[in-house]
């Protein structure tokens, strides 16, 4: 009995502890664009595709982790002590608002809230983040691109709010507060804000505004008078101190690159009390969204990769790409391999410029088998050939001819292929071979000066778009089995008469008779190509149906009509099948035959008369 009680007591304790542990464990709520991107769900990791649902479900201590992507949000309000952050690239993790009011409202949070590495965009000129009646809110490494009429950060009754290493890009009001003190405004870049209220009120305690850059460009006055500048610590407030973003000129806010270029005044000029850089000079801190201890460690992807190879052995590949002008980028890695997206077999080539070479790449013989050629399908003056796919083949070569398959060739990326320009009724021999073009696949990454880098994860950009470069001559495999085929006129079903060649159709019984086809070809190639011929065709279409009807109603005269049409069909055949010179020769030959026959008959008649 006693042991039973002890057992239940122990079991209850274990259950209580396990429940307590579950309740206390912080949950990472991962937000993805697509369910397929979800990480494995565990007791501490959950996955969402909707931002508002993830935030609503969060409790104090949880993290809201955004995978790169654009997330449309309305007005979200919360008061829990949570962290919202982008995992990889700040500029690629976008919260897009389309309503007025505040995109994110922190209202009554009593302990720490952190928002970092996000890009907030909103075309409707709203407020980015509203902090109300809260303490210990930290907003860092974000980019605000909210447009004119907007306020990026609005604080009210929240004096401990700290705002550091953010970039405010073309925003009417960067920071608005109802107090003269905040937890700190450090290392931010206010770029071309369109009025004087980059920070409001202008009476704010200057001691908390440290190491920011205010670049007004031509859009507005400076935020404080020169006399006040001496009270500032490390701020840069001059119209000519452009922060020198890598690419701020893109009209699409999602395509701007707000990393700093080499000569930017924001490099290493931040307030180090906020921590140190994780990229660039790690003994200093930069201003802006890409500086400080929480900044991205992954540079932007390199674009514009192209490459070519020498035509003969030894094969060298030369590649070039567009520069990644972020100052922290110290070089590039040129990856290559024989399979798309798989570069693991070869060590990358490290270069500091935007061109790189891979010397003497090996070209191996590709194993190819003969495809199986299927029965060709006839059509009018065409044969459609199809065959089985061959592994390693990059294309196929079709061979055909009358006496042998070596007379003509054509290339096709895949089966089937239509051989055109053939003569109806003529037999053709056909075979197919597989072709393999040796090629290398290239990708380039940008990396910073860190000791070890990993593409797309740490201190190195993700791979650029794969580029394929052909190396060496194409290799052709053995010929397939041989097939014989001949094209012919296809009879549609049902075989209906056309508006044309009415008489011939009636005389020969059906529209697809070869003789009717010859006359159609003559119409299309010889008559409809000139005005006189076109007029004749129109006249014929108007008057011939009656004659055709008469022929159909009197089948006995069909042989006579066929006989009468024979010379016309013969002439049409000659005119449409042979060159002008050959046609002239044939006509002269026929004329001479006719003249000879005529003279012979006349002479015979005269001779008879003499007798």
């Amino acid at each position, binding site marked *: 009995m006693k042991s039973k009680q002890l057992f239940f007591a122990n079991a209850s304790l274990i259950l209580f502890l396990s429940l307590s542990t579950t309740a206390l464990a912080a949950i990472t709520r991962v937000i993805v664009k697509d369910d397929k991107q979800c990480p494995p769900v565990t007791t501490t990791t959950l996955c969402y595709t909707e931002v508002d649902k993830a935030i609503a479900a969060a409790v104090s201590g949880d993290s809201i982790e955004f995978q790169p992507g654009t997330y449309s949000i309305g007005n979200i309000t919360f008061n829990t002590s949570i962290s919202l952050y982008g995992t990889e690239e700040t500029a690629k993790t976008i919260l897009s608002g389309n309503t007025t009011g505040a995109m994110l409202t922190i209202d009554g949070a009593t302990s720490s809230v952190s928002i970092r590495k996000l890009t907030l965009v909103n075309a409707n000129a709203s407020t980015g983040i509203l902090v109300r009646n809260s303490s210990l809110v930290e907003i860092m490494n974000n980019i605000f691109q909210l447009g004119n009429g907007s306020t990026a950060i609005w604080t009210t009754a929240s004096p401990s709010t700290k705002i550091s290493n953010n970039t405010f890009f073309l925003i009417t009001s960067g920071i608005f507060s109802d107090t003269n003190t905040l937890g700190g405004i450090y290392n931010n870049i206010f770029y071309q804000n369109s009025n004087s209220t980059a920070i409001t009120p202008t009476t704010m305690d200057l001691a908390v505004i440290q190491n920011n850059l205010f670049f007004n460009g031509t859009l507005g006055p400076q935020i404080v008078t020169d006399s006040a500048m001496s009270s500032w610590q490390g701020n840069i407030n001059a119209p000519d101190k452009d922060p020198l973003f890598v690419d701020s000129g893109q009209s699409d806010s999602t395509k701007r690159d707000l990393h700093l270029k080499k000569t930017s005044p924001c490099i290493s000029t931040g307030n180090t009390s906020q921590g140190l850089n994780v990229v660039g000079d790690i003994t200093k801190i930069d201003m802006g969204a890409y500086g400080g201890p929480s900044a991205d460690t992954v540079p932007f992807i390199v674009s514009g990769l192209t490459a070519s190879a020498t035509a003969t052995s030894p094969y060298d590949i030369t590649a070039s790409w567009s520069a990644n002008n972020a100052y922290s980028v110290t070089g590039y890695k040129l990856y290559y391999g024989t399979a798309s997206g798989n570069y693991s077999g070869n060590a990358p080539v490290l270069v500091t410029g935007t061109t790189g070479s891979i010397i003497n790449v090996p070209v191996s013989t590709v194993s190819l088998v003969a495809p199986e050629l299927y029965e060709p*399908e*006839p*059509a*009018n*003056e*065409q044969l459609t050939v199809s065959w089985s796919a061959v592994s390693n083949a990059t294309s196929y070569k079709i061979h055909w001819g009358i006496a042998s398959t070596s007379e003509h060739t054509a290339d096709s990326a895949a089966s089937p292929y239509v051989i*055109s320009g053939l003569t109806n009724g003529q037999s053709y021999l056909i075979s197919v071979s597989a072709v393999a073009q040796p090629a290398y696949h290239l990708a380039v990454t940008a990396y910073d000066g860190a000791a070890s880098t990993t593409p797309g994860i740490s201190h190195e950009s993700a791979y650029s778009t794969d580029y394929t470069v052909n190396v060496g001559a194409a290799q052709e495999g053995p010929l397939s089995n041989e097939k014989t085929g001949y094209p*012919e*006129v*296809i*009879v*549609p*079903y*049902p*075989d*209906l*008469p*056309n*508006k*044309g060649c009415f008489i011939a*159709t*009636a005389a020969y019984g*059906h*529209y*697809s008779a070869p003789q009717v086809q010859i006359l*159609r070809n003559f119409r*299309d190639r010889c008559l409809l190509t000139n005005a006189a011929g076109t007029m004749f065709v129109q006249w014929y279409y108007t008057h011939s149906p009656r004659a*055709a009807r008469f022929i*159909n109603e009197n089948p006995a005269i069909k042989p006579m009509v066929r006989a009468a049409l024979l010379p016309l069909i013969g002439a049409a055949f000659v005119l449409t099948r042979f060159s002008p010179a050959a046609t002239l020769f044939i006509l002269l030959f026929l004329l001479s035959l006719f003249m000879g026959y005529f003279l012979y008959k006349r002479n015979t008649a005269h001779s008879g008369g003499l007798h």
Partner: protein
Amino acid sequence: MKKIVVLMVLVLLPVGAFAADPLMEQPHWSLEVKGGRFIPAIDNWQTYYGKRYTSEYAGSLAYKITRQLEFGLEGGTIRDKGKGLAPTHGTLAGEVVYQLFPVSAFVLVRGILSENQWLVPYVGGGWTRMYYQEKIQNQTTVRGFADGSHFRAGLQFSLDGVDPGAANSMYLDYGVHHTYFFIEAERTRAVVKSVSANLGGTSYQGGLLFEF
């Protein structure tokens, strides 16, 4: 048969009550849009086109001589894609796109006894010209037409009672008195005499009828 007669009587019974409403405004035009299946009358269709039927879409506009009798024009399109015949090979080959464009003039009688009648049988027929077109791989397109006739019958179901608000809006905004959903069967015959091919067939279609 007896059951059908009883059913028809039951359906039309309320009509007598509604029929005592001579002042209700009557429409003068009918506009139909419809679609469905067309089963060609030609034998061996399936051999060349893969299935026994194809799709048909049509529309018609008719003027009402009386509330029950109307004359109109109808146009449609029927299309399918299949193979032709390589005659000396004796095999199916080439690609053929077969299209029909039936144009009809018709007279139609609708069994309307009241403007509030929810179920209306109708029957009609008339002259049809069937334009045809055969696009053949790498060959001249075959075009022509054949004249013939058609007969059709169907049932129309009033949608006015389903959503009276929408029906009222249709009248106020577009002048549409009644909207019906209908199903019908149609038999068409149009023979190309020179080849004895009947391009017609049987259609089973459904659509919307607007009376305005």
